[in-house]
């Protein structure tokens, strides 16, 4: 055993790049997987902690309609209905020195008995009596360089408010400490007046183990919701997003695994004579297999170590990108610290060892299987490689069939979507040898014509070493196709969004409240005064709100719109004119595509929404394209809304300007004359479109980063693989040099071979990339977010793919070519 270990070690020392490349392959793959895992976990943890801190550990909460809960109802519950463990909450967002806080308005006296937010000493009393008094954690104050007490200027919905920091929150445990990081605690009366919610509550927190009893007592319009249900639904909102990141990171690991497979195969091939000798000397095939596996696992362990360090380092960068995306798409979270869960490290370890074992088991099995005499012959290996072609190609077709079946049989599973994608990719890897041979057959005549004997030799050289070249080409093709697939997906998505924005944003100027939690709405006088301006032709108004029910939160959009304005909704099946009469007169809604997808609803289905007085059934008349949110929106006419909700608030309005009036200058005019208060955001059609696309681009930065990482791994992979192949052929080249091949000719031969492999990989990557894009767009995105996107063909990724793969291959050929032409043929022959 010791002797065998020494032999392995000596091989590694004589061929250090084998070891180094294996370690790089593993560590890069693992680092990406680990970084994504850590990032996802940290984001989830931040969400859970802040939920727990803000709900103060209550089991349920009572949610109201669009305007929250009428505060008088709280008194009724407490005094008349004798409910004890209930606490009123008024909350909203505040920004202080660029940091976003949740302003949590509580009634300290309702919480004392249950020990919620009770502060020892006089701080609690002062919270009630000192004007605009707040408390925050000592650590948060220190981070913002604030000494307690202090007067702070905070921005709330665009308006500056002076808050008085009178003391610090004293968390009872570390979980609270973490969860309260971005919380400012205040008295409920302060929260009501600052947030414009006088008379209303955001919710009523409830501790109960008998929710049914409370439900019976609730009047219509109010709903009792379990907190764990709410945290589940918030977590589910981002589930698809996290899953997508994980899948992309696994792709990096697959590419990394190819790298290991490639280098291990080469190192075994190189030692086949030694192995044959050992077998002849009596070493069993099992011992040989174990040795190879052990060698690989030692490399894997080193790669894992390096990859873990890299992964933790990557995750700090990724975390910012991921939380940006979550903030753009879903809700506000503040994730500043990464936590490295032991489970993530364990997962990474298992993945690294599994990937290594799987990638090395085939070459090790090959080495073990062959008889001692046959193993020594290189030609046998090549012969077998060609014999296996048929078998591999059949396997590939089987995998594709399995992928197709998986996609046909499953309807909504994202995991199944990704599984199918991976099957397709592996299938392509298996069929690469066949494609390689076919393409070589096509290319050799061309090369022959263009480059003469060198061209012919290059083509045949690639074919003669099929056992090595196929793997390198497959790895490169997969990496490049991932780049193509993701690029096509993003550009298709972007174009779909642009197209949708162009159609949807038909008004000239949009004015909206910066924060929807302001229940009071926009001042009507402002709307009136703007609508009578000579430049304005017509105005449509909207009310964004959300209704909570046991099944989650429904985003509602009540729109006072003209028939012309209604046409801006691009309906999937119906045409807007035909449903218009019903839309204005009946209990009819249109829902966004993602809403319909997530709730499994279609045109003609009935949707029940808890309205102010009773639950109302609305018929879905149409489904419209909307990329604004993946949670989905229910849109109804303002008249319909007014029939069921006693709420006249307007949160946004759009202006249609008269012919010839320029929107941007009109916006400037509104701003300059200070006609619009600063709580409102005024944007022209053009600016709104640009801002929306900026948000879109920011959202996809994370995807782009992962794509770049995949490219990086692919380039390192192809460099190493080709370098290994060409270095291994030193003896062959020495013979060629000895028989009279000039230095220039040898240079041309090596680079042509490399370039040829790169080009072929690029060509194979194109259809694979196309299929990947297709799966990502039509299957994964649909299943994750419920969006239908148009497939836009953009030649740019394909051209990039071909250029990238050829360039990477040529670069990889450079070093071996240089070494070959410098080498003394005699020496090379002697030592090989």
């Amino acid at each position, binding site marked *: 055993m010791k002797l065998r270990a020494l032999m392995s070690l000596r091989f590694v020392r004589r061929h250090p790049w084998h070891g180094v490349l294996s370690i790089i392959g593993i560590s890069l793959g693992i680092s990406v997987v680990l970084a994504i895992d850590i990032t996802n976990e940290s984001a989830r943890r931040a969400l859970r902690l802040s939920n727990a801190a803000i709900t103060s550990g209550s089991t349920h909460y009572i949610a109201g309609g669009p305007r929250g809960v009428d*505060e008088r109802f709280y008194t009724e519950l407490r*005094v008349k209905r004798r409910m004890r463990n209930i606490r009123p909450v008024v909350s909203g967002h505040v920004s202080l020195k660029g940091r976003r806080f949740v302003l949590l308005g509580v009634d300290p006296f309702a919480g004392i008995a249950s020990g919620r937010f009770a502060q020892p000493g006089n701080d609690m009393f002062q919270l*009630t009596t000192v004007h605009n008094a707040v408390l925050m954690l000592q650590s948060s104050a220190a981070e913002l360089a604030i000494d307690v007490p202090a007067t702070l200027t905070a921005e709330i919905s665009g308006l500056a408010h002076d808050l008085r920091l009178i003391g610090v929150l004293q968390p009872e445990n570390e979980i609270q400490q973490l969860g309260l990081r971005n919380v400012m605690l205040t008295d*409920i*009366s*302060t929260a009501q007046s600052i947030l414009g919610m006088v008379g209303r509550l955001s919710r009523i927190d409830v501790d109960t183990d008998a929710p049914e009893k409370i439900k019976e007592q609730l009047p219509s319009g109010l709903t009792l919701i379990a907190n764990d249900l709410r945290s589940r639904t918030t977590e589910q909102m981002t589930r698809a997003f996290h899953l997508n990141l994980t899948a992309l990171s696994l792709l990096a690991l697959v590419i990394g695994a190819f790298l290991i497979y490639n280098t291990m195969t080469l190192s075994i091939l190189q030692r086949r004579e030694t192995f044959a000798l050992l077998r002849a000397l009596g070493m069993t095939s099992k011992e040989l297999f174990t040795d190879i596996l052990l060698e690989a696992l030692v490399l894997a362990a080193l790669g894992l170590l390096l990859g873990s360090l890299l992964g933790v380092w990557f995750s700090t960068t990724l975390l910012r990108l991921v939380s940006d995306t979550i903030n753009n798409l879903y809700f506000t979270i503040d994730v500043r610290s990464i936590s490295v869960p032991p489970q993530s490290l364990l997962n990474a370890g298992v993945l690294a060892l599994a990937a290594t074992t799987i990638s090395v088991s085939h070459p090790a099995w090959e080495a073990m299987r062959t008889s001692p005499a046959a193993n020594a012959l290189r030609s046998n290996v090549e012969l077998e490689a060609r014999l296996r072609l048929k078998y591999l190609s059949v396997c590939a077709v089987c995998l594709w069939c399995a992928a197709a079946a998986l996609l046909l049989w499953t309807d909504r599973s994202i995991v199944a979507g990704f599984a199918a994608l991976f099957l397709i990719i592996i299938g392509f890897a298996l069929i690469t040898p066949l494609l390689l041979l076919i393409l070589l057959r096509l290319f050799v005549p061309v090369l022959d014509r263009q480059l003469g004997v060198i061209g012919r030799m290059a083509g045949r050289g690639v074919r003669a070493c099929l056992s090595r070249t196929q793997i390198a080409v497959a790895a490169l093709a997969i990496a490049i196709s991932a780049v193509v697939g993701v690029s096509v997906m993003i550009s298709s998505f972007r174009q779909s969004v642009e197209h949708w924005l162009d159609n949807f944003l038909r008004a000239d100027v949009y004015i909206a409240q910066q924060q929807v939690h302001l229940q009071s709405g926009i001042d009507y006088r402002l709307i009136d005064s703007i609508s009578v301006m000579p430049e304005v032709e017509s105005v449509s108004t909207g009310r964004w709100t959300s209704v909570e029910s046991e099944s989650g939160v429904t985003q509602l959009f009540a729109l006072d719109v003209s028939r012309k304005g209604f046409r801006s909704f691009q309906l999937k099946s119906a045409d807007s004119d035909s449903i218009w009469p019903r839309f204005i007169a009946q209990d009819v809604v249109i829902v966004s595509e993602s809403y319909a997808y997530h709730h499994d609803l279609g045109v003609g289905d009935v949707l029940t929404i808890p309205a102010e007085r009773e639950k109302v059934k609305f018929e879905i008349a149409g489904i419209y394209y909307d990329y604004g949110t993946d949670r989905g929106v229910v849109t109804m006419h303002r008249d319909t809304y007014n029939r069921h909700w006693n709420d006249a608030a307007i949160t946004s309005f759009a202006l249609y300007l008269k012919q010839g009036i320029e929107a941007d200058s009109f916006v400037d005019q509104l701003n300059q004359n200070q006609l619009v208060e600063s709580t409102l955001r005024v944007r022209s059609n053009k600016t709104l479109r640009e801002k929306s696309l900026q948000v879109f681009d920011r959202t996809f930065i994370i995807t782009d980063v992962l794509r770049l990482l995949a490219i990086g791994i692919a380039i390192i992979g192809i460099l190493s693989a080709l370098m290994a192949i060409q270095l291994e052929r030193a003896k062959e080249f020495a013979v060629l040099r000895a028989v009279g091949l000039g230095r220039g000719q040898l240079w041309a031969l090596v680079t042509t071979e490399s370039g040829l492999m790169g080009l072929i990989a690029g060509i194979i990557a194109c259809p694979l990339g196309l299929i990947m894009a297709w799966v990502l767009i039509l299957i994964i995105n649909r299943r994750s977010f419920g969006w239908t996107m148009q497939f836009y063909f953009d030649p740019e990724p394909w051209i990039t793919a071909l250029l990238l793969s050829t360039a990477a291959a040529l670069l990889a050929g450079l070093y071996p070519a240089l070494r070959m032409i410098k080498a003394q043929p005699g020496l090379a022959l002697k030592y090989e």
Partner: protein
Amino acid sequence: MQPPLSVNDFLRSKKDDGFQKALHPIAFEFPRDHGAHPRFRNEWWYITGNLRDKNNRRFGFQFTLFRNALSAEPVNSESRWATSQVYLAHVALTDAQRKRHYSDERFARGALGLAGVDHTPFQAWLEDWRLVSEPIESCASCLRLRLEVDTDEFSLDLNLNNTKPVVLHGEAGLSQKSETKGNASYYYSYTRLQSAGRVTLNDVEYTVAGQSWLDHEWSTSSLQPDQVGWDWFSVQLSDQTELMLFQLRHELDSDQNFLYGTYVNAKGQTKQLNGSGFTVNATGSWTSPATGAIYPAGWTISIHDYAVKLWLTPLIPGQELSTSFTYWEGAVNVRGTKNNQSLQGQGYVELTGYH
């Protein structure tokens, strides 16, 4: 968790800015003065009583509504939650037979109808705990109250009717708590309320009757910095007389304790007792298993002018309230002599500031 409140927070404040103080005797007017006096920092409505059911099973009960003003000025805000008035209610029941003491408390701000005190007609409530008067047109000096309190373990539903007129303590209701001017409260009592109704304990209902006592007291600062607590006694004797005594204990020197009392004769006439008029001696002690505080567990009281000697024994020793404030408030049995004639009675004792 540290208790968020202490007696000191409530009764001894650093700043009296803006609050009214009890400096001079005032003319009480009822029912107006049954109501709240928000310009003073502290106020309480306090009912204690001794009840028996038909099998002579003994119960003691206490219901207190505390009002505390967090600032002298009303809070200026458009929110209806804004207030400087905070209410706290304590309720307790002593079951002499099972030797158990039950208590509960609630807090609420004096806003949105969650808690408050109105005077005409008088009603005091904290959520669904209520003490409500039934006005009687023909009788200005009559007080008809109904107390309704419901907790997880027990509930009280009692009708309380005064059989004796209102008693003003101290100098026409101005009750000094130390020699310092302004360290005083306005303080009146109904010393004998005929009580009848229902006590429900652990889902068993008892029809009860007995005698209760109502205190109403408001002040801004009543404790001196060197006063650590007080012992308060209310005694209803079989000769239809009543006695209210308190001593405010000095932290170091018991000779500096501040004593005061009121003797009410059978007709309802009062006699003020100053420190030299009576003595109170504690006998025995009881250590609270919950807080470790050591309380006296019996007293002898001598009132020199009336040749009254009384022995007070708690119904049960453990009548400490496990609420945000910790204090002892319990029903007592009274035996004694007056001019060598034997006397019986019952009462309530309150002990604060024991550790």
